[in-house]
């Protein structure tokens, strides 16, 4: 069972994840249409690139955009949540060990203590995000079960991994839950709003090109995100 899950099933998961994402990226770019979008993408590569990079960069940095500065508390929560989401699984000792054992790859890691802190941070901020969805009428009105489901799906690998790593409760149960939910999350990414993991870069690049090439080329330094 364990061998099947960490063998073929894992491979299938990775294939769906990477192929799914690749197909979506290709379809997105091919679906851009200079006439319909009214952006002369090809005509101004330099303006387009500058616009795209500025648009991506300002929103990738905490408080880097007017939008983030308008919501300081949310911004802090959001970045803690996302840093935890990205850094923990990528640089976890436990994950690096598997890479080393199976393929002999030396992968950088973060200390266990930091990983624990980030994991807890993800869970705490996720709770905050959920409460915010319930508490704020402007968020509640656009929230459906789908949003809670994805939030839960996102947190589950963290929670179960935490339980397993610290041997709280039934290790086997939590370990299976961790692996399976992690796979489910990876599979969900190409097919749900979690597509923003790469979609963020595409969408921001597009709007950045729109402003760089068309809507703000007359402004010094481009659009002031």
């Amino acid at each position, binding site marked *: 069972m364990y061998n099947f899950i960490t063998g073929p099933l894992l491979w299938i998961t990775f294939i769906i994840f990477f192929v799914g994402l690749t197909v979506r990226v290709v379809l997105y770019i091919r679906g851009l249409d200079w006439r*319909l979008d009214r952006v*002369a993408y090809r005509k101004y590569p330099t303006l387009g690139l500058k616009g795209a990079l500025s648009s991506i960069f300002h929103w990738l940095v905490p408080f880097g955009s007017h*939008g983030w500065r308008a919501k300081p508390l949310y911004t802090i929560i959001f970045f803690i949540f996302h840093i935890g989401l990205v850094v923990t699984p990528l640089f976890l000792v436990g994950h690096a060990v598997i890479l080393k054992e199976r393929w002999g790859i030396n992968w950088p890691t973060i200390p266990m203590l930091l990983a624990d802190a980030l994991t807890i941070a993800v869970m705490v901020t996720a709770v905050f995000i959920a409460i915010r969805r319930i508490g704020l*009428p*402007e968020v509640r009105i656009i929230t459906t079960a789908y949003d809670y489901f994805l939030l839960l799906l996102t947190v589950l690998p963290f929670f179960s991994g935490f339980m397993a790593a610290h041997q709280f409760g039934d290790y086997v149960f939590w370990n299976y839950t961790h692996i399976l939910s992690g796979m489910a999350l990876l599979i969900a990414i190409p097919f749900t*709003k979690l597509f923003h993991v790469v979609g*963020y870069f595409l969408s921001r690049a*597009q709007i950045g090109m729109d402003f760089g090439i068309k809507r703000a080329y007359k402004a010094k330094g481009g*659009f002031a995100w």
Partner: protein
Amino acid sequence: MPEGILCNRTPINTKEQLDAVLADKGGKQYYQEMEQLEVDVEKLQKSLQDTCKSRIRTWLEMCAHCGLCADSCFFYLANKKDPQQVPSYKILTTLGKIVEKNGNVDTAHMIYCMDTAWGKCTCCNRCGSFCPYGIDMGVMFSYLRGLCFSQGFVPWEMKIGSGMHRIFRAQMDVTPEDWVETCEWMAEEQQDEWPGLEIPVDKEGADIMYTVNAREPKHYPEDIAEAAILFHLAGENWTVPSLGWEQTSLTMFAGDWEGCKLQVQSVYEAIERLKPKRVVGTECGHAHRGTVIEGPYWVGREDGRPPAPYIHYVEWLAEALRTGKIKIDPAKKLKIPVTIQDSCNYIRNHGLKDITREIMSYIVEPGYFIEMYPNKEYNFCCGGGGGLNGIGRYRQWRNVGMKVKRDQIIATGAKLVIAPCHNCWDAIRDLEEVYELGIKWSFLKPLIIKMAIIPEHLKPQEEEEEEE
């Protein structure tokens, strides 16, 4: 009854159709017919297939439902944070549903789409700058307007506006003869005060071709006279075209993309015919948006730019003041608290924020210019953009929406609001009418004329004698 006599899927293309719709005062029968207007699902599906591509589909699907765009929308703020005014909510329940159901929606839904696309959004694009993914509802509502228009679900005034452009190549029933006559009349009328002033029509190879908003010949001919005076004062070699003089585009507000193309083509043809070095447009935001920013794409120009450099009036004016073509009498600079309305259409959507500040620095006594907050590319819409000013059905909604601009203006303490945009100008006039703030509002042209130093050789002879 699948289609009405007045309210139907066919755009207005003839004078008879236009007169019939116009005769239905306020669109009473028109909106009644709309209740029965059937959705042509097949056509809607075809439109979606052909025009709803990855950008919009990804936006709709990827929206995090985070609500960060809520506070960015003046409608949301003005309506006491009514969640139904959250930009994301507005688009997901309208266009989102059409896309999700692949066009299988009913008449009631299309009317809801219309009321939302025109009555709860001015396509000011402000929300787009507050969304982490850059999801721009202004773009999507404009797209939705196109779908609504193609199905006949369009506010009465917008149907008329589109028809006007299709028939007259102008947003109002101004014929080329009316236009040329108005120019002649205005030039003549100024002779006493401005001897030698001309409004040259169809002059080839001029430095500047000037284009206007049809409201000017129709209702405010003095605006044309003022433009002529300032060009005269600056010693410009300029002209207006007899055809292709109308720069605005109610077709853009209506979502009539075919009409947009026809309108812009008429202006571009004038440019190609008269070969001016550049084109200057009047003090209008959406005219600039339509003809300069979006227009090249409607007619399929791959470079995304008009056939000749095409600038907004504020760009020309800033240049004239900077280079000394027009000199301001320092004693006549404005010495009352002044603020400026940043037009979304050429500030947020064309980056001209510094140009208008430069003009302020020349015409306002230091210390008297006060910024609104927020401003520049983050300004709030005046409340009447996107055609909303002109739509009777949503007048009350607009009046509520204007509260945000009202409060912004009150906070500046300004007594004069400079609004170099016809739509903003109207909205601020109406704002004064509804809320009685005791403010004045103005275009730039009349202010500059009052402040400019008039060189001796341009002055009428008698005036000099009188003075001595």
